[in-house]
């Protein structure tokens, strides 16, 4: 049973590292020798004297504050009341339909748009963080020619003159971009091409799926990527596709996947997920069965699965290596048993593997069931071959003019360095990047584009599904929308892109979807909804790929050297938003590292290379040699990493990026190789050498420990759950009263509370939580949480109100720190647990505060009053969940944190702050407030309309951000609320409004139930869809 499992937060805990033991009972690290944290007594008296004088002086005359109303108040803007606009997040091929919250004309928060049929209200960490990128200090203030500022007219006339000259000589013109999702932008590019016949549009993607496009072309005749529907799948096999984290459309997939992971006593069913991969990815961490393989074995897995299925289906088999790989046969058998409800995906960009996977899905009858070919997706349209050819043309001096539209290939293309060097020989180079990034710096003209929150645009993420972008703020700088620039340079005069988009929508969609409305009403409706979706037109596919040819080109393991996996970072993604501290300080879901770049290595390889990680993240650097590229990065020992493989993230090592990301890590793009005509994110034959250089990686993984208390994670398998859903409950901790063992909640020193109005509570489903971290970023943005920077994280002083604890576990009875456990750690199971203030009904923090700065509300909230707090930190000390955060510094208006926390230290950055939430000062404690500002707003709206509060009106920021719907917040007094339904709450008759509600859901438990603090947050047990293991005799 679950309780015999051993959970550990990181290797240092497993190996009982002395540093870990030393700090295990300390929430915060002691100030270091050189750190001047406090002041001497003398300083104190001096300051005291000064401040007394200052206070008495200040009292003589209060500062005069101004109140400045609008000169001409816009009709729809009321100070203090937010406005919401439906829009679309577009970053290359990354897409999310969103609703932007603005206050007095400033976007301050981005939420998902529930009307979208693609993202269905989900968001990701990058989408949530993008609002701060709008206020990035590194953005260009206006157009530039070379290093000199210029104005748009001058720039236009020069660019047009040069284009005309180049066109007259028949010189080649290229527009280079990432995937373009917008049909109107494509129309703009077409107009440009019509004016300049030698112009071509080259698209590339940082995370390319060109191999898939080519495989589909070969298999089905058209180069497309179909829509996948994980929600219809009972058996999911992923061969190194990180579909929850980064692959193609993670927001959408997370939502679908989570739907198959919801388990209840009424519906004790869930999907089974097999993952074959080399690095421990977010998707692998959520899998039921995870097999660590080398990247070179991905093809083998696909071929072996195909052969097993083919033998059942009576089809011819392939030539495939016969080396046994764990779980392949089991997975294949289950796939076959669940034909029509099965899905196989592969993350590889190798055409051959994708062809085999297409064949597998054809055998499994997935097309038309779990794969929808009638809705091709447009997220990745990049063409690796074209892009490679383009760079060769530039280096060969064959290109006359190049316009980089919103892309940064000098940084994020493997041959970027060559391109960057060759650009100075190109007659005309223009970049529309909104920052002076690597490509813009290398280009002659900088024609900065608006941020997406300042832009008009449209998007077609999937065939027949459209969405609109509208500006939520007037342009902050002298920027101009890139599409407008292209229209102007294409000889369309001073074109207005807004009118252009509107005209397109009139021509393309109004006729089809107008429904008798006049065009203005139709347009207004589209703008209001943000999306416009048409039904799909069915298509039929016939597989006609050449499997044997594909099998023949499968790469085989090469002797010697390591295999390196190059993956997109979960925080900074492909690096385009690297200058965003919200993403830099978002702990990586797996490694829990922040502000750092590293190479992940397996435990046994660490032993071989002599790498030693300690509990404080101290490690050594490794020099990796890939072909003729050499990089030196710190090594991070990662459980679950396949022996003989290493992993390195993209998105770091930016050189022209701004203060935040300056000097973090190395650029991994040049390490990307080629395979079967497309970029290959796994390279073999990598040499690794240990250097003498030491390095400390900031990791949050073993901060905030539970002091050896158990009952934090509850888990079960589906089979056990079906047999006895309450089994874990029977085995859970009991306490002894004067005569017998009882349930811990039955005994209390306290009288409890009565919540007559609302009783706010939260339920977090550990089964659907994927650990992605969108909630963490959403919480930071909503609640003005300070970013503290790497040094302070090392000092265990991160300020996140919401953290996601990642536990490894091993199904083993072996005691902690034993050799046996260490072996299990080679491929552990993973559980994610979002941890935030539990809003205890018997809150231990409240009883120890000497000034009553933390108190209990009549709605079940544990309130924190900053202006009352004197910073004794007794509350943090007494908090069993370690969720309270202390302001060790003044994080706002403080040059020391200028780099890490621009949102509070720059004029521009401060525009993002939520005016409803106090910015905390030095010396006070803070913690999750259950988004009390949202609760108060929701209540007030109900009161104003003279009606009871409806369920769903108040949602917390974390809940809104969660794509998988793992977080449910609501009023537990309201019988019809979602949380009451989910937890199956019934009120006890003797005290209906008391704290002890009867919880009927057999999966619900409270963390550390045995200590009797009675939290208002319930967790639903993790259920793994695993077969019962036969005990070894």
């Amino acid at each position: 049973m679950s309780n015999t499992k051993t959970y550990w937060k990181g290797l240092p805990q497993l190996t009982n590292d002395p540093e870990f033991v030393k700090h295990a009972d300390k929430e915060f690290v002691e100030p270091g020798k050189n750190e001047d944290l406090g002041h001497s007594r003398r300083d104190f008296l001096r300051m005291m004297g000064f401040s007394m004088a200052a206070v008495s002086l200040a009292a003589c005359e209060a500062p005069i504050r101004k109140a400045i109303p609008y000169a001409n108040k816009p009709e729809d803007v009321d100070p203090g009341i937010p406005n919401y606009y439906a829009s679309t997040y577009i970053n290359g091929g990354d897409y999310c339909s969103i609703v932007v919250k603005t206050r007095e004309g400033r976007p301050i928060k981005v939420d998902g748009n529930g009307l979208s049929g693609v993202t269905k209200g989900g968001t990701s960490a990058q989408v949530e963080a993008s609002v701060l990128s709008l206020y990035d200090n590194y953005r260009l203030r206006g157009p530039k020619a070379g290093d000199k500022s210029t104005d748009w007219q001058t720039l236009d006339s020069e660019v047009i003159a040069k284009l005309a000259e180049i066109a007259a000589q028949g010189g080649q013109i290229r527009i280079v971009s990432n995937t373009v999702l917008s049909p109107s932008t494509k129309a703009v590019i077409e107009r440009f091409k019509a004016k300049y016949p030698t112009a071509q549009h080259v698209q590339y993607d940082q995370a390319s799926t060109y191999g898939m496009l080519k495989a589909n072309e070969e298999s089905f005749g058209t180069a497309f990527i179909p829509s996948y529907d994980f929600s219809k799948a009972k058996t999911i096999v992923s061969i190194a596709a990180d579909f929850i984290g980064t692959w193609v459309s993670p927001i959408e997939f997370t939502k679908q996947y989570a739907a198959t992971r919801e388990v209840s006593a009424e519906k004790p069913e869930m999907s089974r997920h097999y993952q074959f991969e080399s690095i421990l990815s977010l998707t692998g961490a959520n899998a039921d069965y995870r097999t660590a393989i080398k990247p070179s074995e991905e093809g083998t897995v696909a071929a072996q699965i195909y052969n097993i299925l083919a033998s059942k289906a009576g089809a011819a088999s392939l030539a495939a290596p016969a080396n046994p790989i764990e779980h392949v046969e089991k997975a294949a058998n289950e796939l076959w048993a669940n034909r029509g409800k099965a899905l196989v995906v592969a993350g590889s960009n190798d055409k051959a593997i994708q062809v085999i996977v297409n064949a597998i899905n054809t055998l499994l009858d997935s097309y038309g069931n779990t794969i929808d070919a009638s809705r091709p997706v447009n997220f990745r349209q990049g063409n690796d071959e074209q892009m490679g050819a383009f760079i060769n043309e530039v280096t060969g001096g064959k290109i006359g003019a190049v316009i980089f539209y919103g892309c940064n290939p000098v940084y994020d293309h493997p041959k970027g360095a060559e391109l960057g060097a060759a650009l100075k020989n190109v007659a005309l180079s223009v970049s529309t990047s909104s920052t002076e990034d690597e490509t813009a710096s290398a280009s002659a003209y900088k024609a900065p584009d608006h941020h997406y929150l300042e832009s008009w645009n449209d998007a077609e993420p999937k065939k027949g599904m459209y969405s609109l972008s509208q500006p939520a703020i007037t342009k902050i700088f002298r920027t101009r929308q890139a599409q407008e620039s292209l229209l102007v340079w294409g000889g369309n005069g001073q074109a207005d892109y807004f009118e252009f988009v509107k005209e397109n929508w009139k021509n393309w969609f109004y006729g089809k979807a107008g429904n008798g409305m006049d065009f203005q009403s139709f347009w207004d409706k589209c703008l209001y909804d943000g999306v416009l979706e048409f039904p799909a037109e069915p298509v039929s596919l016939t597989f006609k790929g050449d499997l044997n040819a594909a099998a023949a080109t499968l790469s085989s393991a090469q002797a010697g050297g390591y295999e390196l996996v190059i993956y997109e970072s979960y925080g900074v993604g492909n690096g385009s938003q690297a200058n965003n501290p919200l993403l830099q300080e978002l702990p990586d879901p797996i490694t829990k590292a922040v502000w750092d770049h590293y190479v992940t290595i397996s435990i046994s390889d660490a032993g071989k290379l002599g790498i030693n990680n300690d509990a404080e993240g101290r490690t050594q650097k490794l020099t990796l040699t890939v072909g003729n590229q050499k990089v030196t990065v710190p090594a991070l020992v990662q459980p679950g990493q396949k022996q003989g493989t290493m992993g390195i993230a993209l998105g770091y090592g930016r050189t022209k990026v701004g203060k935040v990301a300056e000097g973090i890590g190395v650029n991994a793009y040049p390490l990307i190789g080629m395979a079967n005509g497309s970029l290959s994110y796994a390279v073999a034959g990598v040499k690794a050498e240990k250097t003498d250089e030491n390095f400390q990686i900031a990791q949050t993984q073993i901060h905030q420990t539970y002091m050896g208390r158990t009952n934090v994670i509850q888990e079960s398998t589906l089979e056990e759950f079906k047999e006895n859903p309450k089994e874990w409950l029977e085995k859970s901790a009991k306490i002894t009263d004067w005569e017998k063992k009882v349930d811990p909640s039955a005994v209390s020193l306290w009288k409890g509370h009565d919540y007559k109005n609302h009783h706010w509570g939260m339920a977090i489903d550990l089964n659907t939580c994927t650990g992605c971290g969108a909630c963490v970023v959403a919480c930071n943005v909503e609640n003005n949480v300070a970013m503290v920077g790497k040094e302070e994280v090392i000092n265990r002083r991160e300020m996140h109100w919401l953290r996601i604890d990642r536990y490894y576990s091993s199904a083993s009875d072996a005691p902690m720190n034993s050799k046996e456990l260490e072996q299990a750690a080679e491929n552990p199971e993973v559980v994610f647990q979002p941890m935030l203030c539990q809003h205890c009904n018997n809150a231990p923090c409240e009883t120890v505060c000497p000034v009553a700065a933390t108190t209990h509300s009549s709605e079940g909230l544990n309130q924190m009053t900053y202006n009352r707090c004197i910073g004794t930190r007794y509350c943090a000390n007494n908090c069993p969940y370690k969720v309270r955060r202390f302001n060790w510094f003044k994080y706002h208006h403080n040059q020391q944190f200028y780099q890490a926390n621009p949102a509070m230290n720059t004029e521009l950055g401060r525009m993002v702050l939520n005016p409803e939430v106090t910015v905390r000062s030095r010396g006070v404690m803070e913690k999750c407030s259950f988004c009390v500002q949202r609760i108060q707003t929701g209540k007030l709206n109900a009161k104003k309309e003279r009606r009871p509060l409806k369920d769903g009106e108040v949602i917390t920021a974390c809940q809104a951000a969660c794509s998988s719907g793992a977080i449910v917040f609501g009023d537990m007094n309201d019988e019809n609320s979602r949380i009451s339904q989910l937890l199956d709450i019934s009120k006890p008759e003797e005290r209906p409004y008391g704290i002890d509600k009867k919880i009927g859901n057999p999966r619900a438990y409270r963390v550390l139930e045995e200590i009797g603090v009675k939290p208002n947050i319930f967790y639903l047990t993790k259920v793994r869809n695993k077969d019962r293991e036969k005990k070894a005799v």
Partner: protein
Amino acid sequence: MMNYRAARFSIFLISAFLFLAPSLSAQTVPTDDESVKNGETLFKNNCYSCHRVKEKWTGPALAGYQNRVPSIEWTIAWVKNSAKLIASGDEYANKIYNEYNKSQMTAFTNLKDEEILDILAYVEVEAAKPDAAPVVVTEDGAAPAAGVPSAYINAIIIGMIVILLLLLVVLGFIVSTLKRVVENRNLSEEEKEVVESPITLSTVTRSPGFIFLVIFLVTTVGFKTVIDGLFTIGVQQGYAPKQPIAFSHKIHAGENEVNCKYCHTGVMKGKQANIPSPNICMNCHTQIKTESPEIKKIYAAIGYDPATGTYSGKTEPIKWVRIHNIPDLAYFNHAQHVNVAGIECQTCHGPIEEMEVVYQYSLLTMGWCIDCHRKTEVNGKDNAYYDKLIQLHEQSKGKNNKMKVEDIGGLECAKCHY
């Protein structure tokens, strides 16, 4: 084809409705009390700043409108959007427009037809009332302070002082009597020394008891003064800074009885009551007091040229001096107090209608907030949000115990601090 048919059908329906509409009762002015009452509220909130029933104000007196306007439908159209009516070339509309120096009436597109009819109902009822009906303004007196009234405390203190003085006199008599008795007896040397030792001022002032008493009193009083002083830091009661424009609430809210909500548009909606932007001033001041130097400042702010009646588009916001400064750490929402609780503006802002220059009337300290939350009853009338709470409160505390703000968590920290 289908669409065309559907469209034709709907056109038929609409025209049928329009044809039938005048015969519907909706277009006659109602007379029931409910409508009149509703009309009164609507009139005060929307019309009162420019119209009176019997007097000519910014706009015409409304009494007897029914004899002047072409029809009720015309009136509704006029109220909703007079500019449209004028532009359509309507004869009477243009006549009125020209009569009032081409000053445009605000368009009330948000008012429903029935609401406009209610207003008209009120106007008719009000016009029928005899003149000079004295308006009785009722004001709620402040609730008497709990506990012993201060007058009693003073009486008790004075009484005690009198008693103490009497005691002193009596003691004096006793001392002198005893002295006389002692003088008549034979005393030993030691006894004499004691008896004859003089009680002078210096012996008293040097006595340890006296010194202790004096130090104690000085320290206590000093401490109390310092504490009281510290509590007044940042309290700006009575603060009345000079404003960039000498705007008088006395003229607007007092003499002309412009509804507060007419200018402070956010007060029912949200956190801020809103200082009106100059475009609201312009609703009236394109016509009224156009020559005043103070009004010229408004014109400058909004870029209006009174000579041509045009706007230049160049604006310069007015920098008012903020009077009510609540610290950032405290959250206050006007809508909760004015809309939900129905509190009068004057409760916190004082006799604003008498203020030539606005000053801070209330303390605006946390104690002041708390005090009110302790005393004030929750206004749960016709508000379903509070129904369950009031029911539960009455169940536990009895029908006569009214539910105060404090009873539903009005004193909790996170109601104002987050």
